[in-house]
């Protein structure tokens, strides 16, 4: 470390000055003096009096170009790509759908673009949980609570399977595949295919939730997996019911299909978070009593 560039050898000083001139040239005139001062400090910190031209070059190369950060285009690309990262997706989903410390009800999605409902903020507003019940949600949630939560998608899967096993024969040969805005079926599919789709749509999520329970993954990740599984399984189970309703218009079908997922996920996450809170309280109060 040196205090001023004068301490450098003449060659090294000349190299440093040339770099400073070049860098400062790229900056708006009003900022040049301040930037130059910062860069001199940067050099002084990293060089000593014996530094040669190669040392100066090494420090100046490491400093990189001066700019106002990545262009807004690059920033947006990075932000878009960040939305599609797969790393710790389950944990990110849990942190997005359940963030009671955050007051906002709509928060940026864990995956892709757009906004998701922060069910944690909803729960706080309903007085179901404190914003700080757990510093990191689901870290104190005990294993048995995860097992109970995973029973929700499992029950939905069992219901769908039973429905087709018991009522399958009495259902018409073709079942609705799509409904219009007032809940009248406008596309159809063969019964066998509809049954296969609905069973898969509920059994696969139930299996994922079951795996999550036994996976030994961190609590937030398990909560995210079970919540995602519950969302898919509840949509699958509601579709199963909707297909068996026949051809009459059912204007409530759309809103019900849209509401069932968030309600089921909300119930599961409230249960898991309350279990985590109860576990923290039990631990703390037992310790105090000991």
């Amino acid at each position, binding site marked *: 470390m040196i205090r001023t560039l004068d301490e450098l050898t003449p060659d090294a000083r000349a190299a440093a000055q040339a770099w400073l001139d070049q860098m400062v040239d790229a900056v708006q005139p009003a900022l040049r003096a301040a930037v130059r001062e910062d860069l001199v400090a940067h050099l002084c910190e990293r060089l000593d009096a014996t530094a040669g031209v190669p040392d100066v070059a090494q420090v100046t190369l490491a400093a990189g170009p001066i700019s106002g950060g990545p262009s807004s285009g690059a920033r947006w690309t990075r932000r878009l790509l960040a939305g599609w990262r797969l790393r710790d997706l389950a944990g990110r989903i849990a942190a997005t759908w359940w963030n*009671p*410390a*955050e*007051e*906002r009800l709509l928060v940026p999605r864990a995956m892709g673009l757009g906004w998701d409902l922060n069910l944690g903020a909803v729960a706080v507003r309903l007085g179901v949980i*404190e*914003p*700080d*019940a757990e*510093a*990191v949600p689901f870290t104190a949630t005990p294993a048995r609570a995860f097992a109970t939560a995973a029973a929700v998608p499992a029950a939905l899967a069992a219901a769908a399977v039973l429905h087709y096993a018991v009522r399958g024969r009495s259902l018409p040969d073709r079942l609705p595949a799509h409904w219009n805005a007032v809940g009248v079926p406008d596309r159809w599919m063969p019964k066998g295919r509809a049954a296969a789709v609905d069973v898969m749509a509920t059994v696969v999520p139930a299996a994922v939730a079951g795996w999550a329970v036994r996976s030994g993954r961190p609590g937030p990740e398990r909560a995210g997996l079970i919540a995602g599984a519950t969302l898919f399984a509840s949509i699958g189970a509601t579709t199963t019911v909707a297909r068996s309703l026949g051809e009459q218009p059912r204007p409530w079908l759309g809103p019900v299909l849209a509401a069932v997922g968030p309600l089921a996920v909300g119930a599961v996450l409230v249960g898991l978070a309350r279990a985590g809170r109860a576990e*923290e*309280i039990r631990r*703390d*109060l037992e*310790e*105090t009593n000991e």
Partner: protein
Amino acid sequence: MPNERDAWASQLRKGVLDLAVLALLVSEAKYGSQIVDELAARPALAISAGTVYPLLARLSRGGLVQTTWQESPVGPPRKYYELTAVGRRQLSAMAEAFAEVSSALNDLMGELR
């Protein structure tokens, strides 16, 4: 220019929020909504619960405060926050730095008064 003043004051508040919360805990442990209310009672430091709770979580993860649930005389148990030894050290370091900045600024602004 009330808006510019408010925006600047809000930036200033954000910068000292850690210090304010740690200082609130210096004499005794407090629970979340108590911390929010005590900050709200000082309009210059009033910050929404949505900012205070994530900050408390951060201080707790950083080992500056520790939390314990305690029975409440009214209603459900409450989560209390108290300073750890690290938190106390950090608080004195921050308070010292703040005092230096504040006294330097007071010096500079002496002519304004």
